[in-house]
């Protein structure tokens, strides 16, 4: 039986964590994710969960403790943002390389300098090649649902990889909206009990974890991470399907919003996708064939399915909330361009960087980009790369 209530993104994530009831959480506070662990610490103190909450002195230690607890056979969760994720970076590939199914919420925030506590995706994008599965969430509801599904994905025997659930800082983490949530038991039934594949604490069968590997075997280990990531594609779909059947909210690896006959396509992740959908809905009411493709899973990137969905569009604008200094365009743009290389047709793809450090991204900004796209179909002229809402 599901109920409605008012949730912020942070409250939604903390609630999912309470319902999952992990064995260990190790965390260090950083805005805007701090509140997740604050709320969760209340659950711990009130005896609503059995979790061992380890308050450490840095994010580097937080992820180290998570890895240790995971290798010891525990179900482990944490949360961080921005510089916190950056400080964990060394340990991120340790977690994936040691096949620890840790689930971490990344409340997306810009990287310094200049110091900025607000939202963009620079933090998560910096971790895109560390062997973590990355799932993005448009609103509090998706953050809640994604965290619950992430447990099943991470711990699946074919995957055994850590999962990062991304949710926009402040825009979602600190905003209240109406959200549906399940009963604790329903969530616990869905995630099931964690049975570690191997455990440091299994004294019957002592094993070595984290040993040094010389050039003659290192590559095979990395190939195994790639294989786990590849198998995750199917697991993510299966878990999404089961979740949809049980709880009535549908999840795939990307969302197709009015794309079926779309000439004009926006590709955008997280909260901004909602704002773009709002504009696209209005364009459709005027008879304009526009649509939105919202990648939910960034790693493993669903390049085949996305390319297949985009093949008949005329012009695609990829909206990136992160910079890639010195590359042709933002990280999402590069993925889309690369995905389109796998098909025959060749729609025009432009890139717009928006919302860095939470610069306003409003419906009229989307409308302005749309005007450029429409003009391109008549004139053939358009800037391939540009910023949205930037001073000259």
């Amino acid at each position, binding site marked *: 039986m599901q109920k409605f209530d008012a949730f912020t993104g942070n409250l939604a994530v903390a609630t999912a964590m309470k319902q999952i009831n992990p064995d260990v959480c190790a965390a260090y506070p950083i805005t805007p994710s701090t509140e997740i662990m604050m709320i969760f610490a209340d659950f711990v103190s009130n005896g609503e969960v059995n979790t061992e909450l380890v308050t450490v002195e840095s994010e580097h230690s937080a992820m180290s403790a998570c890895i240790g607890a995971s290798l010891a056979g525990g179900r482990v969760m944490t949360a961080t943002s921005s510089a916190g994720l950056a400080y964990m970076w060394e340990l991120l590939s340790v977690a994936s390389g040691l096949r620890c199914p840790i689930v971490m919420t990344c409340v997306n925030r810009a990287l310094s300098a200049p110091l900025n506590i607000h939202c963009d995706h620079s933090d998560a994008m910096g971790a895109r090649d560390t062997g973590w599965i990355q799932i993005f969430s448009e609103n509090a509801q998706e953050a809640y649902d994604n965290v619950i599904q992430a447990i099943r994905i991470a711990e699946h025997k074919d995957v055994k990889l850590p999962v990062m659930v991304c949710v926009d800082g402040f825009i979602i983490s600190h905003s209240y*909206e109406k959200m549906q949530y399940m009963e604790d038991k329903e969530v616990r039934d869905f995630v099931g009990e964690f049975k570690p594949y191997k455990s440091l604490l299994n004294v019957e069968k002592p094993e070595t974890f984290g040993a040094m590997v010389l050039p003659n075997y290192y590559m095979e280990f990395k190939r195994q991470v790639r294989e786990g990531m590849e198998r995750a594609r199917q697991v993510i779909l299966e878990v999404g399907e089961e979740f949809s059947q049980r709880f009535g909210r549908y999840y795939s690896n990307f969302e197709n919003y009015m794309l079926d006959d779309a000439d004009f396509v926006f590709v955008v992740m997280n909260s901004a996708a909602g704002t773009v959908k*709002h504009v696209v809905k209005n364009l459709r009411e005027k008879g304009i064939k526009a649509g939105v493709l919202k990648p939910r899973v960034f790693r493993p990137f669903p390049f085949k399915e996305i390319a297949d969905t985009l093949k008949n569009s005329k012009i695609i604008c990829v909206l990136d909330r992160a910079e890639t200094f010195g590359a042709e365009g933002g990280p999402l743009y590069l993925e889309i361009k690369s995905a389109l290389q796998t098909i025959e047709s060749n729609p025009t793809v432009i890139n717009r960087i928006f919302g860095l450090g939470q610069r*306003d991204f409003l419906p009229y900004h989307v409308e302005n980009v749309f005007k450029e796209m429409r003009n391109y179909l008549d004139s053939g002229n358009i800037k391939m790369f540009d910023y949205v809402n930037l001073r000259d």
Partner: protein
Amino acid sequence: MKTLEIRWHGRGGQGTVTAAKTLGESMIETPLYFQAFPEYGPERMGAPVKAYNIISDEKILTHCPVINPNVVIVVDPSLIYSENFLEGATEDADVILNTGKNPSAIRKELNISGKKIYTVDANKISLECLGRVIPNTPMLGALLRVTQILPLETFLNHVKHTFAHKKFSEKIIIGNLEAIKRAYEEVKGE
């Protein structure tokens, strides 16, 4: 229904963000969708702050500040003279101000054309009901009267329930309920 896009103007520490949150949460009593969010920034006591509500019978897709509010609420009287609180407001916006003055006097003083102006002395109500100036709850009463978004009784029950859950004293709960009721009755339109 017409989607309500509400912008709150207050000062840090006056409970402006809490008011927006309380209004949002109270919509749980209805089938409506809602958002409640502050203007994100460093929180400084006494500095001007903004908060927003969107209330709609359709799922709300946007995740960005309200630029063209159809309801504007000014919680702190001093902001009436220092903030451009009408910026972007729609032509027929309801403007609810915390002041002891009449709507027509404010209209003349600030040379406002169009809009619908409402005033309520929320500071006085708050002082009399709660013994201190916390104008956010009375402003919610005025908002309910102007927008008719929720029956007063339903809202009062919601506030009573939430405040009890937060373990506020009986005296504070009764004072707040009284403040909401009084502002509901005392708010004046032109």
